Structures are given as structure tokens and as C-alpha cells.
């Protein structure tokens, strides 16, 4: 029987709101081969550095992705600051950390909802997103935007939050943590969920390393790698222990993300306790001249910004390596042999952000 079913999966597909295309070659319900195709969302914004000056490019960087917006902007700024040797005020660093962790919580809750949707658990999706709205409220209140924070700028941040409000938010998060736990417990304990997650798409530690997986995908395979250990922003003062899981399957990735939500809440609370007073930005003069690899930990994993300036107001080169791009080979490795029904959840466990990937 040489004949096999070919399912064109995406770019328009309700499970994956983003346009990733896969040619699935299927036998019965088992996927034999998966050939990916990207480019449906490619805009070519790296070339925009030639048209926008390096300060203006922050707005573009923030819009590389609407989910990881904050950290994209922050990484870009950190890269430029490094080239220009700017010492960003402490308060700005702490605020970046706080917002960064907020975006991690919001991204992970969003992911939990989408994952629930991918395995057909609609009410879990709804409840995850119900709680996410509360986090979004905090974000909107402090930054002015729901998904595009718009707080980054070279040399600091664009908004300040009063210490009183930060304290209140810290307390508020404690109550939200309880609500989040109610939902995440279902992911971890419910058998019908486990049936869809456990043992699906197992990625061994060696494969994960060899194929260059990053972020929760890598950590779920037992590799303790977290860019926050580099100590950018305020992570020098607030040490982070990478959360790892040994199973390497979808369940493991789910566990890692859930634990990271609570870790992020903890980091925010510690940052609020320690945040120094002072200015939130500094004056930036001159143009970047030099190159730098900025690496940070996004909710999806390590993002790398390569920035090169030549002393003019336009950068000479800007290049982004996004976590989803790094994770794609790994997920394609585990797809053959799984069933069609597993495809959505498998793709989702890398938390795909095609918008970042294709830019």
C-alpha cells in the first residue's frame, strides 16, 4: 500500500491561529512525515533598520511579536545599550524585569489556554483566559497597552509605576496565584488531560541539545539552561533557578511552563521588594558603533539579537534568532509516529510564535 493520505495543515487552521504550513503524510492516523513551510507571515522587518533610526526601531522590535512584545523591545534596547556603553538606571532595570515576568505569566497562561483548546478541553481554555485577563488588566494599568506594552526605550523605560501601586500589585498577585493554581492543577492531574500529554512527543536530552532546542522545550528534556542566569536587567540581584523536568514529553513541557508561572510571580514579588528609587531613563546621545549579541530568556526560550551599528543613526545590521525558530527542528523530529490528533498539541508545546520566527 504505497498510497498515503496528505493533509495540508495550515496556514489557515483554527487550532493554530498562526500561519504555519505542514504537509502531513499520514497513514491511518499515524503521521509518517511532516514537511514544514514558513514564510506566510514574513514581512522583512530586519531590513527596516535601514529606514528607521535606532531609537525608532524599538517600536518595530516591540511589534515583532504581540505576545513576547515586551522582551523583544527590551532585548533590542539592551543590545544597543551594550554597544553604546550606557549604564541604565537601576529602577528601569527592575521595571523591565517586572514587566518581563508579567509578560511571561500572560504568555504562559495564554499558552495553557491554547494547549487546552488543542486537546479539545474548551472550558479549560476559557478559564485559563479568564484569569489571563486579570493579568492583562495589571499590564494595561501599568504600561498602557494590553499586548503591546510600549514601555521599552533605549536607555531605560518609558513609564514609571509608583512604589505603592507595585506593593498592591504584589499582594494582588498572591490572590491570583490561587486562581491560577486551580486551573493548572487540572493540567497536572486530570487523567483525560494526561492521556493527551504524557508520552506524546518525547524529546530526549541528547536530541534536544543536538537540535538546538531552547526554553521550556529544552528544559523539559532535562537541560538546565535559562538565559536569565546571564544576569541581565535585574536578574543579577534576583537569582533564578531554571525549572527543569526529565520527561521530555508534552506533559513535561506543560509542567515546566506551569512552574514558571509561579516562579515569575515569585520573581515579581521579590523585585517589588527590592526595587530602588531613582530615575527611569537616561539621556541617550550619539549613535551606536559596534556589534553585540543580546541574549534574553523569552517565555518561549532564548532570543538572540545581533546588532551592529556603524556610528550613524541607522543600524547597519540587525538580526533576530527567535526561540520558535530554534525549536522547530526539535518538534519536527518528534512528529513522525504520532497521531494526527497529537499534531496541534505537539506544535503548541513549542509555543510557536510564527510571527517572531518569520519576522
Amino acid at each position, binding site marked *: *500500500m504505497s*498510497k*498515503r493520505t*496528505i493533509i495540508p495543515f495550515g496556514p*489557515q487552521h483554527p487550532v493554530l491561529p498562526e500561519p504555519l*504550513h505542514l504537509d502531513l503524510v499520514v497513514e491511518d492516523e499515524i503521521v509518517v512525515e511532516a514537511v514544514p*513551510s514558513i514564510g506566510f507571515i514574513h514581512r522583512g522587518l530586519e531590513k527596516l533598520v535601514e529606514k528607521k533610526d535606532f531609537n525608532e526601531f524599538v517600536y518595530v522590535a516591540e511589534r515583532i511579536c504581540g505576545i513576547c512584545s515586551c522582551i523583544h523591545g527590551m532585548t533590542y534596547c539592551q543590545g544597543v545599550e551594550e554597544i553604546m556603553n550606557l549604564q541604565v538606571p537601576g529602577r528601569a532595570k527592575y521595571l523591565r524585569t517586572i514587566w518581563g515576568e508579567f509578560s511571561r505569566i500572560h504568555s504562559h497562561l495564554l499558552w495553557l489556554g491554547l494547549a487546552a483548546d488543542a486537546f479539545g478541553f474548551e472550558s479549560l481554555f476559557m478559564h485559563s483566559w479568564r484569569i489571563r485577563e486579570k493579568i492583562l488588566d495589571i499590564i494595561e494599568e501599568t504600561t498602557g497597552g494590553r499586548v503591546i506594552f510600549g514601555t521599552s526605550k533605549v536607555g531605560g523605560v518609558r513609564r514609571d509605576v509608583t512604589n505603592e501601586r507595585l506593593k498592591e500589585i504584589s499582594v494582588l498577585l498572591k490572590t491570583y496565584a490561587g486562581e491560577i493554581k486551580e486551573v493548572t492543577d487540572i493540567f497536572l492531574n486530570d487523567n483525560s488531560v494526561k492521556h493527551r500529554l504524557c508520552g506524546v512527543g518525547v524529546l530526549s536530552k541528547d536530541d534536544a541539545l543536538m537540535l538546538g532546542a531552547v526554553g521550556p522545550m529544552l528544559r523539559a528534556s532535562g537541560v538546565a539552561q535559562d538565559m536569565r542566569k546571564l544576569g541581565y536587567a535585574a536578574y543579577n540581584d534576583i537569582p533564578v533557578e531554571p525549572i527543569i523536568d526529565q520527561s521530555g514529553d508534552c506533559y513535561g513541557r506543560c509542567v515546566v511552563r506551569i512552574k514558571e508561572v509561579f516562579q515569575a510571580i515569585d520573581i515579581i514579588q521579590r523585585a517589588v521588594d527590592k526595587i530602588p528609587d531613582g530615575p527611569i531613563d537616561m539621556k541617550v546621545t550619539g549613535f551606536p558603533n559596534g556589534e553585540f549579541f543580546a541574549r534574553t530568556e523569552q517565555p518561549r526560550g532564548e532570543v538572540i539579537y545581533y546588532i551592529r551599528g556603524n556610528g550613524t543613526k541607522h543600524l547597519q545590521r540587525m538580526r533576530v534568532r527567535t526561540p520558535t525558530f530554534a525549536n522547530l527542528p526539535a518538534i519536527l523530529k518528534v512528529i513522525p509516529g504520532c497521531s494526527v490528533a497529537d499534531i496541534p498539541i505537539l506544535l503548541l508545546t513549542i509555543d510557536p510564535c510564527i510571527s517572531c520566527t518569520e519576522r
Partner: protein
Amino acid sequence: MLKNDTGRRVLVISSVVAIGLLSIKLLVDYYAATVVYFHLPAKWIESLVFPAEVAIGLLILGMCFRYRRWFPALLVLAQSGLIAWLEYFSTKKVISENPFFLDKFSLIMALIIGVVGGLIAVYALGYMKVFQEDYHKEVADRRGMFFLVLFLFIGAMFGIVFANDLIWMYFFWEITTLASFLLIGYKGNKESIDNSFKALLYNLIGGLGFAGAIVYLNVRADCADLSQVLDKNPVTISLALGLLAVAGLTKSAQLPFSRWLLGAMVAPSPVSALLHSSTMVKAGVYLLIKLAPLFKDTTVGYVVALVGGITFLVSSFAAISQSDAKKVLAHSTIANLGLIVLCAGIGTSEAVWAAILLVVFHAVAKCLLFLCVGSVEHALHSRSIESMDGLILAMPKTAWMMLIGMAGMFLAPFGMLISKWAVLKAVVDANPLLTVLLIYGSAANLFFWVKWMGKLIMLERPSEELTALKLEANISRTISVPLFSLGFLTVAACLTFPIMSAVLIEPYVLNVFGATVSMTRGNLIIMVLMLGMLLLFPFNLEPKRKGRWMPRVVDAYLAGVNYDSYSHVNSLGGISKNASRNYYLEKYFSESVLLNAGIISTVTLLVVMFLMGSKI
């Protein structure tokens, strides 16, 4: 037989018409009769039986020596020895008083053999022409021999259903074995020869059982006729009953003997049709149904019923994993015969009524399907179901006949389903625990038929491309006429089954059991209503041409990357044609695993049967 085409054509068609008319005449003459016995015109004919049997034996032996197969040879020697001992050395040989008979069941069988068998012979004319001239040029043209054996086969079947004397029946029984052996090996290549010997081997096992039973009945029970056997107390002749059951089970390809029928797929399609629908396997179930009254509430009966039930279950499951059309049909035949055997084993009036219905409907629909697959095979040069997508446009006539045949096999309100309804009722009344085999088997049946139907109607290529194939352009009338007649018969059998049941089946059951069943009037009306609605379906096919619900054809949904409705832009930027493969679930319904399990369980059952039988 004439060597040239036209001569053969005239001869075959005229003999088929003659056979058909004769069987209808038989029906007209005797439809009111209960049982009629016939004597031979002269005594000397009787004495010819044994020499003829010896001749058959020698022929088989010759073939065995030629191809160096020793097991069949041994079996032939053994059974000939048994019969020879009975003829010449035993003092207990009973002389049959009524060597031939005729009752309503044999009338039904004669009608099936005459009409369905005849249509197959006509079809074979067209089919074998293409077979020899276009498709299998490497096979030596032995069409003369082919048709001779074909008619011999049909003749022998008539013999079986009219024979009362067991020796005569055994004689015809062996002829069918020989004929099937010759036809299966028609192609003459290694595969065919292997499979023909496999069929021979299994059937000779059955033949040995038959011979043993004859000897036992003559010596221990003083009876030579089927009618006498039926009067006996089953307990006293349980060994003979068991042996006859084995004979019936082998011939009807039940587990553990079913492999021969699967192997017989190598034969040309008309042969498969013949083996599967009107002859051969039907001889086996005929014998079992005849013996059904003796099976009721006996160990042998239970075992036969269980073997039938298990065969139904196992074969239905095994059919799921097959993509070869003929193999699916073969498994389905075995499964349906299993149902008949199950009914025969139960042996109640209800069950026998259901069993006869099954025999009738199965013969017509299955024959239709085999002939269709034969045509499709010649047109597509493939038997794989996977290659049959869009057949509804590529070969509309054949495809529609196939759909009717399949609907006839499993869908309400067609024949097989009426019968299944009857079987279920009969089984529940007799022993509800047996329903478990029936119920799971039916579910599997539904699965493999519907996915095949779906394959025929789905369109993965533009309709213009399919119609341009013109696969049916020069279909000969000798092929299309049998197809359409059988398609018509499948539907007509449904409509006329109340009459058939009232005139033939119910009186027969009443005569044998003293009680009978029939369908209630309400159910009949519902069935007719459903059939009426279904017959409207073809008229509904054309979409509306105007008005608010006039459809607009757009591309099929391909996640947005349509190239057109039938292909999409693939990941490499090229164009991929749509392709889909049915589910075969080999992991769960592996043929070999299932068959092995079936064989082990049924062999165990048969061993238990003989152990218990010998004690009594």
C-alpha cells in the same frame, strides 16, 4: 467445446438460457410440492458411481504426482479406500431407495445455481476474452477446458442439491472439489498451482470426513439417504454428524479451514464469483442447513454454531485490514457463510429461515460484487481499493452496480440486512450469549463496507479527467448484461422476498420443523418504504439548477493553500495532488493474528466435539 469465439459464445449463452429456463421450469412445476423423490431410470447408472469416483481419484492422483504433492494424494487414497471398502467388502452397504429428491430448499438452490451461475458463465465469456487477449497474455489459452469445467461445476451443484443418496451426493461433492481445483489453477503459474493444491487439500479433508460419515452411517445406522439420516436421533449418530459437519465446514471455508478460499483469489474473477456465490461454498452450507434439525441442542450443533460465529467475527475483523478488493470480498464471504453456519448450528425454525434468506441474498449480491471487481480489475489493472477513487465517474455503470451490491451486503433495507435482522432474532431466541459474536462482527462489517463505498464516490481528481479515461467505452455486452441483471436481482430480491419467503422458505421450514416464522406485516411495510425512499436517491443526485438553493461550486477546503480544488501548494512550493488512504488499522486487525487465533479456537472446538461425540 468449439475453439473459436463465436461458437463458444453461442454455445455458452444457449446452455445458460437452457439452464436458467430449466430451473425456472422446475420452480413452476414443483413450487407446490413438499418433497418429491425420484428414481434412477436404470439400475446400471447406480453402478457407475464408484468407477466415476475412482476416475476422479485417479485424475487427482495424477495431478498430485505431477506436481509432487503427497498430502492430497494420501487423502485421496484414504477416502477412496473407505468408499471401496464399503462398496465391495462391507456387508452392511445399504441400497438407497430414493437416490434423488426435490424439495423447496433444493428448488431455491437450483434457482440460485441456475440463474446466478448462468450469469457468471455469460460474464466469463467477455471476461476471459479480455483476460486472455489483453491482460494475461502469458497464460495459455485453455478457454475450452475452462468453460467445460465451469459447466461441469454447475452441473455438479445441481447434483448435490438434488441428491438424496449420500453416495451420489459424495460423488458430486468430489466433482466440485476437482472442478474448483482445476479452475483455481487456471493461470498455471506457481502461485495458482500452490493455491489450487491448498484448496484441494482442504476440500479433501472435508471429503474424507464425508466418506467416513457415509461408512459410519451405512454400517452403524443403516441409512444411505439424507432423508433417512434426518429421521435419526442425533445423539446416536453424533460421530457421523460431526464428520458431515467437518465436510460442510471445509467446503464452506469456515475456520479452521478458511485459508483455501483466501488462496483461491488467484483464479480469474468469474471463478471467484462462482466459488463464492452460487456454487462450492454454498454446497457446504446447503449440507449444514439440511442437517440443521439434527443440530438443535446437540454438542455438534453447539460447536458448529460457535465455529460459524467465530468465523463471522474473525473474518469480519480481518476484512478491515485488507486493501485488496477480492480479499475483502473473500473475507466477507467467509464471514457471511459463518452467519449461515451459525444459524444452521442453532437449528431452530427461525434460524433456518434466516439462514436460507442469507443464502439467497448473499449469492446474488456477492456474485455482483465479484463480477464488478473483475471488470474494475481489467480496467484499472489493479485490485486495490485504494486505486478505485472516483470510480463513480470513471466507470459509472460498474460503480453503481458495485454500490448496489455493497448496499445489498450490509445496509437496510437490503436483503442481507433483512437476514441479519432475522439472524439476530433467531440467535437471541436460541441463545443470547451468541449475539456477542454477531454484534461485534456486524460493527466491523459496517466499517469495511462503508469505507469502500466512500472510496468509490470520492473525487480526488477533476471530474473531466476521470470521465476522459473512458474506461467503460468498449465494455462488452456479455459483461454488462450479467452485471445489470444481478444489480436488478439484488434490488428485486428485496422487493419480492416476502413472496419468496411465503411460497418457498416458510413451507420448507414448516415441513421440516412443524413451525415457521415470517416477518410481520408492519416491518415489511417499513422495509418497502425504506427501499422506495432509497430508489428515489438517484433522482436527487443532480443539484438544483435555479432558485435560492442553487449551489455554487467552490474549491475544496485545503487550509487556504489551494492550487485548485484537487491539489494544493505544498511545503516545497510545488503542487501536491490530493491523496487519501482509507484506514486499515493493521495494528489492531492484523489478518494473520486474527486467523491464527480463529484457527486455534475452532480447532479446539472441533477436537472437543469429537471427544465428546465419541464418548456418546
